[in-house]
């Protein structure tokens, strides 16, 4: 599958698109069942997800928490705003810094929208992260969380082709 495409469609938004070689029911399972979520949603190498409480009904609360090998922790919590089986999940997201020095990542909740669509056994997933304010996105962008990652090359055209 082609690597994830990241773009910034507006000044408060980040959009990530990726396709998966699997039918939508399996992708949906991997996105909503904690035992499966834990296996891939590990954020960074060397991190695990000791807390993964998920909700798949409107108004339900979720709680995710990650822990590094050296005992640092951070997490996200939020509420499900919209859930449409095999097609869409919308939820709020509040960053809980735990003991991690990742910067503030913004105080107000962001709105995360994940849409799923299947064509010929390939599932396209689009994730939009809408920050409450430009300042919040700024905080998330300046965080040290993303440092030291192994980066894949992204061409100028790819970045700007939003």
């Amino acid at each position, binding site marked *: 599958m082609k*690597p*994830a495409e990241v773009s*910034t469609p507006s*000044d408060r938004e980040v959009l990530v698109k990726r396709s998966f070689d*699997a039918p939508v029911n399996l992708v949906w399972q991997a996105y909503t069942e904690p035992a499966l979520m834990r296996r*891939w949603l590990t954020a960074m190498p060397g991190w695990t997800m000791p807390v993964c409480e998920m909700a798949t009904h409107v108004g339900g609360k979720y709680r995710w928490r990650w822990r590094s090998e050296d005992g640092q922790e951070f997490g996200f919590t939020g509420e499900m705003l919209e859930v449409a089986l095999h097609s869409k999940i919308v939820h709020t997201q509040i960053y809980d810094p735990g003991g991690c020095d990742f910067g503030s990542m913004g105080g107000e909740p962001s709105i995360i929208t994940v849409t799923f669509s299947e064509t010929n056994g390939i599932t396209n997933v689009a994730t939009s992260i809408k920050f409450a304010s430009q300042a919040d996105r700024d905080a998330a*962008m300046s965080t040290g969380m993303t440092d030291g990652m192994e*980066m894949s090359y992204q061409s*100028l055209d790819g970045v700007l082709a939003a």
Partner: protein
Amino acid sequence: MTRLDQAFAALADPTRRGIVVRLARGEASVSDLVGLFSLTQPTISSHLKVLESAGLISRSRVAQSRPCKLETKRLKAVTDWLEKVQGIWEGNYKRLDALLDELKQAQKTERKK
């Protein structure tokens, strides 16, 4: 607003992204860009002002046509950030690819039974 944030705001507009892509191939004057985008000169000029104040382009004070030039350093800060974000997501997605392969196999085995 920080410069990086300003750069992202500037790049949120499709015409301004188009201008940046054009300037990546070399300098251009306002009239070159007017011709290329079929927009009025004041519209192009206002887009250039936004790009210039975000530090993404600079305009020569020497030549009368004041050609615009891409400031690659600023643009690199933007692409670097996007690459970092992309790296984290792609790392997760590669693990998801592997998990989905496993789920597909399990489903096949289940059907055979």
